[in-house]
């Protein structure tokens, strides 16, 4: 099939199978997203980040852990060390490249845990109503009432420092907003006629929640997660900075800033370069999230 006919097939007025209908609707969403140039910038940065993480061993000029005390704190542009070296003489560029893996790892884990937990709690509370709603939402309130970083600190302190525990701590503090959002959406959705209609076909609550309410909550959830990603990366970096996340010598970006802090006046690049990396990735997630908000609206069909 040539390019032109594939495009026509994807934009067909009357899809001929379920798969065709789904692909066609995805493609239209993609076309909408593509018109948003800022979102495309964000997406490009994130694709580059994934690429960097996957091919880190190939891309990195040096071993991120190999120390060379003779050439410590070299400035940006030094021969062999494009972004300079840190206090132990490790190549900052290589550490950044390997750090992308850790950042992605954190992002992926949190994105898997927090929204799913929030979605479960929120939709069940919203659909069931009554005492289930009261109990679940009060639990959510309790988690919401704690300052996020302090709660994460407490968890890490209890579970021990380390990247997995940091992720767990962040997830535990990140799910309540998703629960609230899903509940609010469920309350609107459950009183609509299409839910009434499926109830009149004898569908049970489990089917209604998983097949009818979730697909509608998920799009706004994805947008929210993307917009929150920046905050999550920053929280992970913050924990790393406080020494409660990734442990040295791991090249986690937050931990790198923390290490560079001591030299910030004389050797600014040691802290600034990982800071810029965090900034860029956070910004990319925000830009993409904004674009997804428009693209995921099912009503939009370019009409």
């Amino acid at each position, binding site marked *: 099939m040539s390019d032109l006919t594939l495009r026509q097939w994807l934009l067909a007025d009357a899809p001929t199978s379920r798969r065709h209908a789904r692909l066609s609707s995805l493609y239209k969403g993609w076309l909408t997203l593509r018109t948003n140039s800022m979102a495309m910038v964000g997406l490009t940065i994130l694709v580059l980040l994934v690429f960097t993480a996957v091919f880190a061993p190939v891309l990195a000029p040096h071993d991120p852990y190999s120390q060379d005390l003779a050439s410590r704190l070299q400035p940006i542009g030094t021969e062999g060390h494009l972004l300079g070296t840190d206090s132990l003489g490790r190549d900052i560029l290589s550490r950044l490249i390997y750090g992308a893996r850790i950042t992605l790892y954190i992002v992926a884990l949190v994105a898997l845990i927090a929204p799913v937990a929030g979605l479960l709690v929120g939709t069940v509370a919203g659909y069931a109503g009554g005492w289930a709603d009261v109990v679940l939402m009060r639990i959510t309130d309790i988690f919401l009432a704690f300052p996020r970083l302090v709660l994460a600190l407490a968890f890490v302190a209890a579970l021990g420092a380390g990247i997995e525990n940091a992720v767990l701590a962040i997830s535990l503090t990140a799910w309540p907003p998703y629960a609230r959002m899903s509940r609010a959406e469920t309350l609107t959705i459950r009183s609509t*006629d299409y839910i009434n209609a499926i109830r009149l076909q004898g569908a049970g609550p489990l089917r209604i929640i998983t097949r009818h309410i979730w697909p*509608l909550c998920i799009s706004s959830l994805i947008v929210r997660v993307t917009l929150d990603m920046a905050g999550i990366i920053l929280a992970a970096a913050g924990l790393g900075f406080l020494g409660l996340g990734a442990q040295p010598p791991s090249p986690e970006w937050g931990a790198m800033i923390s290490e560079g802090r001591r030299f910030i006046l004389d050797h600014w690049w040691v802290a600034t370069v990982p800071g810029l990396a965090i900034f860029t990735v956070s910004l990319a997630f925000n830009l993409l999230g904004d674009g997804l908000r428009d693209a995921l609206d099912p009503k939009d069909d370019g009409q």
Partner: protein
Amino acid sequence: MTALEIRDLDVWFGHAHDRVDAVKGANLSVVQGESFGLVGESGSGKSTILRAITGLAPQWSGTIEVEGQALSGAKRYRAFFRTVQMVFQDPYASLHPRHTVDQVLSETLHLHGLDNIDKRVAGLLDDVGLGQRFRFRYPHQLSGGQRQRVAIARALAGEPDILLLDEPTSALDVSVQAEVLNLLADLRTKHGLTYLMVSHDLPVIAHMCDQLAVMRNGEIVEVMSSETLRMGNPKHEYSQELLRASVAPQ
């Protein structure tokens, strides 16, 4: 034989002091194969009666009998959903925005425990005059009339005996309304259905129904044949007023 019998039906929303009585002491009975209309203005409680029958309005008292079986509370059993089905007012709100026509109908057939789903979906689409081209479209790719046909197909999927129609054409253009009303009339003959239809539009009810009840403020003020309405002979003052308001002076 009576398909649907309602006696002393009260339906209310809310509790204690902010209780709103939507239907007060309604009585009506619909014979098998008949088409019965409920007319009234907004807030008259006409749609609430349909919701009480289907269990969507849980707070009611009185008697509702479907084919001789008395209902209670809001819980309905599988067999009920294969006897009674409903078509909603707004076709833009009654279809799941992320489900294709095929998904809507297949799931409904599956829920009713029917086999041969693929063939049945095709049959339903032909039944409501949509054809196979529309099978894999999403609701936003359909016009209002096409959506309402899908909603009718969904209601017919479980092969019910009684169809509750809640203003099925009030959101549609008049030319589309004519098509949908014709379709409903044909389906009734073909499948021997009983209709209970709600509308604010007297000519539509007179066209579709044999008997009708006029409602105001939750009460049925008059039950008459649509012949009586056509002749311009309703007894109750309010029915006459409604009739006057809906006949355009020529």
